[in-house]
């Protein structure tokens, strides 16, 4: 249970980091909080030959702040900007008193334990891209973009294009994730997060994130629902769009959820059978939809008058 040997480079500036990464060496890994990488190295599931420790990069420790009415092509709206090196606990404390970041706050409370969130970073969790992790799920569900820098320049990748496969993202070997823009839901949007795991702090067996807005007749106007733990990456369930224009009916949500989740390609694994996971996902999905609907009802007064 000790890591195998590696070269260690502690970088002080972004330019230095990009120069080190420019070789594109696939055996080089970036060390941020290390709360996923170090366990994998201790268990020899990962044996990088070279670690680049970015904990000294002040530029990436950008405190969370809202960016309102931002416009980037067709992608416009309000975002929460968070530096990649911000600790999960720091974001948890910020979002605790930021009503529009309620979904993020709720999800953060499921990430590991307070002691691992003290060290684990927001960018590290996204870059690690564990298919059952909470932060990737919320990023996929809310939408937003990541900012990637390399010696070639800076580019942005939208949330829907970021996660590619198990533990695999759009980040190229020579690129550094510097900051994240999380799309903030409308002030009157209801949100919900549901998760099932064996013990507090364990990886989710299944997790569900949902945002929903209602129209003046308390019918569903817009709904987004994401799942983690059911595929190689977090996925959006577009089929819940069938509920748009309808008021809440549990039986109807149950039918839509069961049909959508029935189409997911689930396999048996050491934690659960496919049938169990399908049943669990359906139950949590209906709960998340109902909780988001009720949350939206309580936020009725925040809805702009049309």
């Amino acid at each position, binding site marked *: *249970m*000790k*890591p*195998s*040997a*590696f*070269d*260690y*480079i*502690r*970088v*002080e500036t972004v330019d*230095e980091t990009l120069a*080190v990464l420019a070789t594109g060496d696939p055996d080089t890994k970036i*060390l941020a909080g*290390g*709360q996923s990488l*170090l*366990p994998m190295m*201790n*268990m020899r599931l990962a044996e990088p*030959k070279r*670690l680049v*420790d970015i*904990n000294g990069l002040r530029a990436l420790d950008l405190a969370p702040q809202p960016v309102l009415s931002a416009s980037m092509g067709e992608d416009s709206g309000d975002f929460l900007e968070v530096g990649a090196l911000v600790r999960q606990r720091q974001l*948890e*404390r910020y979002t*605790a008193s930021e009503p529009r970041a309620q979904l993020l706050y709720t999800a953060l*409370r499921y990430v*590991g*334990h*307070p*002691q*691992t969130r*003290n*060290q684990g970073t927001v960018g590290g969790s996204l870059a690690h891209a564990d298919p059952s992790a909470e932060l990737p799920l919320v990023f996929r569900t809310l939408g937003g973009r990541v900012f990637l820098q390399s010696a070639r320049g800076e580019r942005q990748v939208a949330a829907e294009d970021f996660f590619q496969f198990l533990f695999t993202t759009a980040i190229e070997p020579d690129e550094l994730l510097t900051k994240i823009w999380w799309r903030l839901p409308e002030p009157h949007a209801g949100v919900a997060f549901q998760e099932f795991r064996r013990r*507090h*702090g364990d990886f989710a067996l299944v997790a569900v994130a949902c945002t929903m807005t209602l129209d003046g007749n308390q019918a569903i106007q817009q709904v987004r629902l994401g799942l983690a733990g059911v595929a190689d990456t977090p996925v959006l369930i577009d089929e819940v769009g069938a509920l748009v224009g309808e008021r809440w009916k549990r039986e109807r949500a149950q039918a839509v959820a069961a049909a959508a989740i029935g189409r997911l390609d689930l396999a048996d694994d050491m934690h659960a059978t496919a049938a169990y996971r399908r049943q669990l996902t359906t139950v949590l999905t209906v709960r998340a939809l109902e909780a988001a609907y009720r949350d939206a009802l309580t936020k009725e007064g925040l809805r702009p008058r049309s």
Partner: protein
Amino acid sequence: MQEIARHTLTPITLRVNGHPYRAAVETRLLLSDFLRQECGLTGTHVGCEHGVCGACTVLVNGIAVRSCLILAVAVAGAEITTIEGLARHPAFPAVYRAFTEHHALQCGFCTPGIVVSVMAELIDPVSQILPPPRGPEHGAEAHNGQSLEERIIEILSGHLCRCTGYQGIKEAVRELAQLAIGSQ
């Protein structure tokens, strides 16, 4: 930029409990092993070595973290506090007494980590004392929307104890959270 090649022994200095400890180490040495093997501070226990059990919890710059998930070379220059350091803290006797009175440990393997986490969460970073007494109406005072009970459970969720069933630990922490040390 600092570069250290694998398999070389590089001298580093870590400040632990206020004292400098100098040793030549490999890049892959974990902070938990530095504390136990190089400093001889064996109060930091090593259980799972993948961040789950919490026995190796220490403070790095006053923040509770897993020392098995941190490289010793990465924290050169930081202020490390172990259970040996906290045992000299003015608030420690109250923690010791509460854990004893509530039978909050049996074999004691998990205890150092739990005490580090509890003291990190409950001791005010400015006054260095446990929080002032609260009337019954404040017994469940919200912290980030959490009740005191939820907060205690969340602190302890990061620690595995295979003996006590946690009830005694919860009672000890609940008492500490409501106790005034500074006014004594």
